[in-house]
């Protein structure tokens, strides 16, 4: 009765950007045993069209879909195997969401060590993309907090660790885009926090030079730091932005904030609203609603709204880390053709290249509702991991903006010549010939991967498009 739990469906899938939709056979195993037996049953069929694991589908591009092949949906398996409230180490199934983990562990005084801008991702997805957060400049990426993980590779089950014999497999899997096999479970080291609030400092900067120098000078004082950029601003305003930097609030800081009763009540209400997700976009408009005029107005308001002198406030974890989670399905606002998120990193010293790209963006009048700049800390050991020391910029761009495809190709050239790279987990349009230039460990990763999957069963639309395997 191995097939009893095999829950199979044919589904149209795309990434969060709603582009490049393909048809996939989706298997949703409801237990670890079902997962293992599903993999055994699927493997022979995967020879032709491949298979790939999928979490909550928040990656923007086509990395968690496999056209004509099999997608193993792990998001229904949210298992907390072990928790140690002394050390903060947990053992979870890879389908465990950051959201569920926070809801369970935050009341016990622990927070996730690294989180991207949404809590609706799985631990498996975070490993596969080696995600980074606003604390990357100090703490590095997600893979640094996995002491051990169990991987179901096509050639057998491996318990991989960051050091020792299995370290090669470990670092091929961290950032490996799900192509080394299915992570069944992982240990994760959480970080202790005293409160559920953040002390947030907000600084408005009038141009790119000021923004970069403020970030360079002050980032080390804050665990978290990120800047929003008005990418429609031109000339002397180019790169104007709002920098938010934060630390976890300590107990005395919250107590002093208690004196402002009304303010506190307001925050509580706002964060409650946000955590309940009262707003949700349920249908896709035929056209992009986040067009240039709206973005221009939004950017002006957002910039003016920020205090002209640096100020400090107390915010909830939800509103600081996950403002967009407040609007369910916000990706639909980009309309039927969807959008892409383009994120790149250029090493420190390549500020002129960063400026050039921002100039070209604003010159081309490409509006980005979300343009985010951040300083990265050290490189990850993940062979295909994205982070490296330097400046990283992420922009959301609607598909259908004229000439955008060509403009991004030009950015790729600039980035490659600066020895930077583009984030694969968000990609949906790179030219395959750029990958070896951006990811010098590609061949090493390929040879390790091929040993784990000699018949090449693992594949995704992204791996085929970028010719990774």
């Amino acid at each position, binding site marked *: 009765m191995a097939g009893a739990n095999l829950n199979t469906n044919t589904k*149209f899938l795309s990434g969060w*950007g709603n*582009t*490049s*939709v*393909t*048809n*996939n056979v989706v298997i949703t195993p409801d237990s670890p045993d079902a997962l293992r037996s599903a993999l055994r049953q699927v493997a022979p069929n995967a020879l032709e*069209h491949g298979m790939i694991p999928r979490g909550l589908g928040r990656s923007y*591009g*086509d990395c968690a879909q496999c*056209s*004509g*092949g099999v997608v193993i949906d792990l998001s229904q398996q949210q298992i907390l195997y072990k928790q140690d409230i002394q050390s903060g180490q947990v053992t979870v199934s890879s389908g465990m969401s950051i959201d569920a983990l926070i809801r369970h562990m935050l009341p016990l005084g622990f927070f996730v060590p690294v989180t991207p801008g949404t809590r609706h991702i799985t631990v498996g997805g975070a490993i596969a993309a080696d995600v980074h957060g606003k604390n990357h400049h100090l703490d590095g990426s997600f893979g640094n907090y996995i002491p051990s993980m169990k991987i179901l590779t096509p050639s057998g089950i491996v318990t991989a660790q960051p050091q020792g014999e299995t370290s090669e497999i470990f670092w091929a899997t961290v950032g490996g885009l799900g192509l080394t096999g299915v992570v069944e479970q992982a240990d994760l080291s959480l970080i202790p926090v005293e409160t559920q609030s953040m002390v947030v400092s907000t600084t408005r900067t009038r141009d790119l030079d000021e923004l970069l120098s403020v970030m360079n000078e002050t980032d080390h004082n804050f665990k978290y730091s990120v800047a929003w950029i008005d990418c429609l601003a031109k000339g002397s305003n180019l790169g104007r932005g709002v920098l938010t930097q934060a630390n976890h609030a300590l107990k005395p800081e919250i107590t002093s904030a208690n004196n402002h009763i009304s303010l506190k009540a307001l925050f509580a209400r706002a964060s409650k609203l946000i955590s309940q997700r009262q707003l949700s976009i349920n249908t896709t408009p035929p056209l992009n609603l986040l067009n240039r005029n709206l973005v221009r107005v939004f950017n002006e308001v957002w910039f003016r709204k920020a205090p002209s002198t640096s100020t400090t406030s107390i915010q909830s974890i939800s509103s600081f880390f996950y403002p967009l989670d407040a609007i369910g399905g916000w990706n639909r606002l980009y309309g*039927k*053709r*969807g959008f*892409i998120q383009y994120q790149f990193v250029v090493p420190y010293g390549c500020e002129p290249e960063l400026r*050039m790209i921002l100039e*070209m963006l604003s*010159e081309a009048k490409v509006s980005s509702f979300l343009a985010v700049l951040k300083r990265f800390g050290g490189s990850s050991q993940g062979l295909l991991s994205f982070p490296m020391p330097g400046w990283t910029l992420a922009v959301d761009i609607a*598909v259908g903006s004229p000439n*955008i*495809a*060509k403009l991004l190709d*030009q950015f790729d*050239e*600039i980035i490659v*010549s600066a020895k930077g790279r583009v984030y694969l987990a968000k990609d*949906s*349009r*790179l*030219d*395959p*010939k750029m990958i070896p230039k951006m990811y010098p460990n590609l061949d090493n990763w390929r040879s390790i991967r091929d040993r784990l999957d000699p018949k090449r069963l693992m594949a995704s*639309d*992204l791996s*085929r*498009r970028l010719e990774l395997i």
Partner: protein
Amino acid sequence: MNNSFGQPQSVLVLGGASDIARATVMKLVNQRCRKVLLAGRRPEVLNGVANEITRSITAQDRPNDSEHDYNYVSSANNVEISTAYFDALDRTNHQKHISEFFGKLGNVDLVIVAFGILGDENYDDPAGSTSVIDVNFSGAVSAILCVLKQFKSQGYGELVVLSSVAGVRVRKSNFIYGSSKSGLDGFCLGLADELHGSTIRIHTIRPGFIHTKMTNGMKVAPLARKPEDVADAILQCLGTDKSVVWVPQEMKYMMAILQLLPRSIFRRLPI
């Protein structure tokens, strides 16, 4: 695989000698397209087209239409163009050939159905006249349905079919060719509706008079265009849900007026 901007990486052309298909492929290889298979009846013609496309890549090594004067380097595209035998009339072998083409290319992002013959509109020659129908309609329907099977198996795909304004309202001057395109046009529109909302798209292209070897020596009609103009229109519709593409766009309005005319007047028009 297709990317977010609807730029195909692998293209199969059925009727690889078509001037419109050649112009389209020349533009596609300057985007993401790296694998092209030109299928048709005459290898010597196809090989010539393949060489011509390859030469155009080397000639356009550096994009020259940049609005910015930043120095960036674009390396030569690594494009592989191959040719294969395919005959629209040989319907019994369509399935076999097309599945071989898919096997050779791996995933096929775009299939262009470009074959077609004009015929000589001699209705004293029933056999010759029906061969126009056999190629343009039956052959195309058979090929499209074979491609569809492959697309269903790979989970996605995009089809571009060259119809004609001649099929929108059939004229007395070329009613054999016109009726073959009319049948094809209707088939494609029905299929597009059937496929709507799925991961497979079909775009029906309705060119007016295009300067190609098929129309060489014919009296030039109003709103005549070049194959490159059709290619531009095709590139624009890729990745979108646009199922009917007129070239030029004005043709749409001209045909709308012609369609309103009563037959008693229409038959008297010198077209």
